[in-house]
């Protein structure tokens, strides 16, 4: 039943952003560290319910861009609006409220290593959503563990998990609060093809189930193909081309081509 829905969704690639409500709006974003200019001119609009995949070489500033979206880094100039509000101008309280609506999957997973997987998952429920009802907490934990395929690892410590399991646990901890926006930093890097595919389908499933808006940073073309409503290519601190996976697949641009050269 569950598998059938996933499959169905994978095949059907209809864009879900009918309403065209803008959720993330980035214009002329610049960011440098010291003398090193990382982001030179980022422009991106993301609509509600849309999955945008960002492709780019290592060290191009992909992670920096999404760190700006959650206010971890402050851009040097340009506009960065989430839900219509300029992130850099939010005060501490407003930023916190925004962050509750955004899920951020770290490249490393960033599990709290002094807690078991279960405690990791309970943490955002009790500390951020302030849930008190144990039955509901348990149910949510079981559900999310089930969907990332970690049901039997609930009581393990992060140090006892494999790299792939850690990544899935990190994903579970981010998804458990049902964020409106998901920022995935390389969700499938370092995973075997089968798990990668499962994660990609999970991302897609989240989009359908919770109308999540997502930015997915990846090097994994299979993941991009499965999840993307739209793909943007990043090079030298700016987005050089965007479009659906299929249009970019047939692009004439050399840099764009290089990303697609390994797939038929």
């Amino acid at each position: 039943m569950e598998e059938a829905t996933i499959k169905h969704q994978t095949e059907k690639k209809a864009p879900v952003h009918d309403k065209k409500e803008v959720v993330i709006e980035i214009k002329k974003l610049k960011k440098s560290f010291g003398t090193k200019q990382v982001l030179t001119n980022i422009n991106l609009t993301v609509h509600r319910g849309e999955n945008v995949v960002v492709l780019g070489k290592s060290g191009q500033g992909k992670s920096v861009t999404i760190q700006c979206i959650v206010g971890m880094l402050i851009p040097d100039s340009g506009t960065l609006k989430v839900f219509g509000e300029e992130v850099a101008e939010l005060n501490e309280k407003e930023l916190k409220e925004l962050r509750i609506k955004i899920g951020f999957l770290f490249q490393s997973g960033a599990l709290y290593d002094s807690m078991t997987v279960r405690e990791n998952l309970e943490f955002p429920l009790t500390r951020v959503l302030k849930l008190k009802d144990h039955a509901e907490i348990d149910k949510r934990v079981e559900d999310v563990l089930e969907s990332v395929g970690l049901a039997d690892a609930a009581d393990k410590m992060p140090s006892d998990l494999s790299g792939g399991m850690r990544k899935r646990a990190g994903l579970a901890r981010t998804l458990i609060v049902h964020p409106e926006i998901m920022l995935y930093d390389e969700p499938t890097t370092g995973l075997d093809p089968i798990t990668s595919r499962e994660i990609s389908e999970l991302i897609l499933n989240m989009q359908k189930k919770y109308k999540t808006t997502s930015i997915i940073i990846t090097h994994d073309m299979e993941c991009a193909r499965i999840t993307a409503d739209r793909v943007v290519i990043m090079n030298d601190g700016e987005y050089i081309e965007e479009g659906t996976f299929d249009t970019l697949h047939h692009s004439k641009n050399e840099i764009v081509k290089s990303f697609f050269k390994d797939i038929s």
Partner: protein
Amino acid sequence: MAEEIIIPGWKKWLEDIGEQVSFFTRFVKNIFVGGFEWSEFVRQCYEIGYRSFMLVGITSFIMGVVLILQLRPTLVAFGAASMLPKTLSVSFVREIGPVIIAIICAGKIASSIGAELGSMKVTEQLDAMDVSGANPLQYLVVTRILATTIMVPILSVMGDVIGLFGGFLALNLRDHMSLSLYATKVLASLDYTDFLPAFIKTIFFGLAIGFVGCYKGFHSARGTESVGLAANSAVVTASLWIFVIDAIAVQVTSLLFYK
């Protein structure tokens, strides 16, 4: 020319002080934000007490023994061997106990807090907590600083008792004195002006140990080697703070009590 070289150093130093003040204010604010993390606080108290108990006990015991052995010849030369319990208890309770125990705790606790939070910083756990909308300051910092602030004084009192008991055993190597006589002499020679200032001092030692450990951990740089650096500089800075606080405490105490 010279100024250009010196000023950046000063600027960095001043910025660091400013950052410490702001970190401390945020710590104080976060004590009262509501939703105090009781279970994490109790866990920290237990960890700190449990991890340091043996070390503090052994060190204090040895200090008590050594002090008696060192003091004895001098006092005997003045025909004041009967002053041994008094001399030991006053010096131990007022100064040696609190400072030695605090230094031990700086080595044991400040370093482990610095390393723990430093590695959380490096592996993006602090960022993850922050970005999720949870409050790492409330969960990690408030609990740890309050735990050291409470546990270091408790460990010090415990160390005082063990040190004085060590002194009693050492005394009995040469002389014979019953435990009850020794205890009576010790208690008679101590009053609240010995105990209270020393106790208050240890509260500040505990605060400094927790604060420095947390600050260094939270502000460690990226990269694995910075975890070691955070732990290391936590110990050095906390030890320095302990001596500074001790120097201030002795001034305040002598103004208030010893005139």
